[in-house]
């Protein structure tokens, strides 16, 4: 049996547990991601203005290899819901996949309750807008236009249809932060969205908004694993160069 995959998962789990349990003496220093700083500002303005936040979670099922991105999106939705649930117009979460839409409702409810505003939660705040990528985007575009949205976050697995949402947001002068795990969508969002998260920044967003011990621990683990992979790649290239493999 190939031991690489279980070894990598085991090592990651061990490191994650270790760094989650170690108490830091000082708060973690995170690299500045300007897009997330501007998101903070847009969230504050949206609550002050009494306008709405729209969170798109994409159309990937949790049963597919792309299921990690909507999970990261749900983590971020939890923090965003807690911060904005007391606004005059509470946040809306949309998804292009039914199980993610249901989880979004549950996550929103949890965020409302954490903010002490559980009675204001409405199940229609978590919506399924379509069952295919383009129909889902087409279903979300009228929300941007009609429901007084001033800030929107696309975080999950999106295809290039995310650019249509970015364009719709720009037409409404709404702030938009786009983050997808798909490299071609990241390129589309870089061009079309006012703010885009590139690479694995999508998975770091939770740490920046919530900054719990487990979030910062997972960033540390990602950094360690990244260095291990870099060393393995360089080592492999070096060994190949000298003809040992």
């Amino acid at each position, binding site marked *: 049996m190939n031991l690489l995959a279980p070894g990598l998962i085991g090592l990651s789990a061990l490191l994650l547990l270790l760094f989650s349990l170690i108490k830091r003496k000082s708060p973690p220093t995170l690299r500045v991601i300007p897009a997330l700083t501007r998101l903070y500002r847009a969230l504050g303005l949206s609550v002050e203005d009494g306008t709405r936040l729209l969170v798109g979670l994409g159309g990937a099922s949790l049963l597919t290899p792309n299921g*990690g*991105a909507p999970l990261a999106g749900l*983590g971020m939705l*939890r923090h965003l819901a807690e911060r904005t649930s007391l606004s005059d117009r509470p946040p809306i979460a949309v998804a292009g996949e039914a199980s993610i839409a249901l989880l979004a409702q*549950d996550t929103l409810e949890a965020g409302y309750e954490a903010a002490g505003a559980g009675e204001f939660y409405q199940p229609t705040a978590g919506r399924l807008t379509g069952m295919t990528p383009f129909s889902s985007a087409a279903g979300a575009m009228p929300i941007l236009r009609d429901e007084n949205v001033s800030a929107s976050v696309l975080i999950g697995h999106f295809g290039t249809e995310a650019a249509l949402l970015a364009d719709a947001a720009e037409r409404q002068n709404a702030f938009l932060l786009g983050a997808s795990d798909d490299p071609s969508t990241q390129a589309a969002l870089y061009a079309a969205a006012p703010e885009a998260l*590139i690479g694995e920044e999508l998975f770091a967003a939770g740490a920046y908004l919530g900054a719990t011990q487990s979030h910062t621990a997972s960033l540390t683990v990602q950094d360690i694993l990244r260095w291990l992979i870099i060393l393995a790649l360089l080592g492999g290239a070096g060994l190949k160069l000298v003809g040992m493999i």
Partner: protein
Amino acid sequence: MRVVALVLAVVTGLLVLFGYFIPALAPVQSVLLNWAIILAGTAAVVGVFNLVLVHGNKITKREKGGIYSALLLISLFATFIFGLVLGPDHPNMRLLVEAIIIPVEATLMALLAVTLLYASIRLLRRRTDLMSIVFLLTALLMLAASATLPFGEVGPLSNFVRPWFQHVLALGGARGILIGVALGTLTTGLRVLFGADRPYGGK
């Protein structure tokens, strides 16, 4: 209840994960994944009810765009009834999909091409930095190397520049991003598995 949900989620997640590496657990993994597929199907039905509820509210409250919501609900129920009566494989049902849904999605895709072109033009106005210039120059170069030009292909562009950009720069960059995404997915999954992130009723 929250503890039960947490324990169920963690145990199920661990069984599915170990099912990949321990052959004895593979049948359990298969059963759990089949249950997940059935649940996902049920979620689709609940999702459609949610869609009906949202658009029904828009119609009854006479909100902006209510007419489109009415159109959506009429189309939804008509398709549902036709599907029940005729069956999904009936030629008329297939025509409904091939003559409406596919052309509409293709239209949106065509619209996307214009949107991206327009977005690229606006990019320099929004973000005037070196990366934006490199991004636009690369896009233009790749367009020139890939498009069918009236005077035929430009040899060096299509024979050298395009393959080099695609197979060296783009592929290398994409692999780097995908490794990062895989590591992010791994740690996110582990956080859910440990119950640190609970998108299933964790208050």
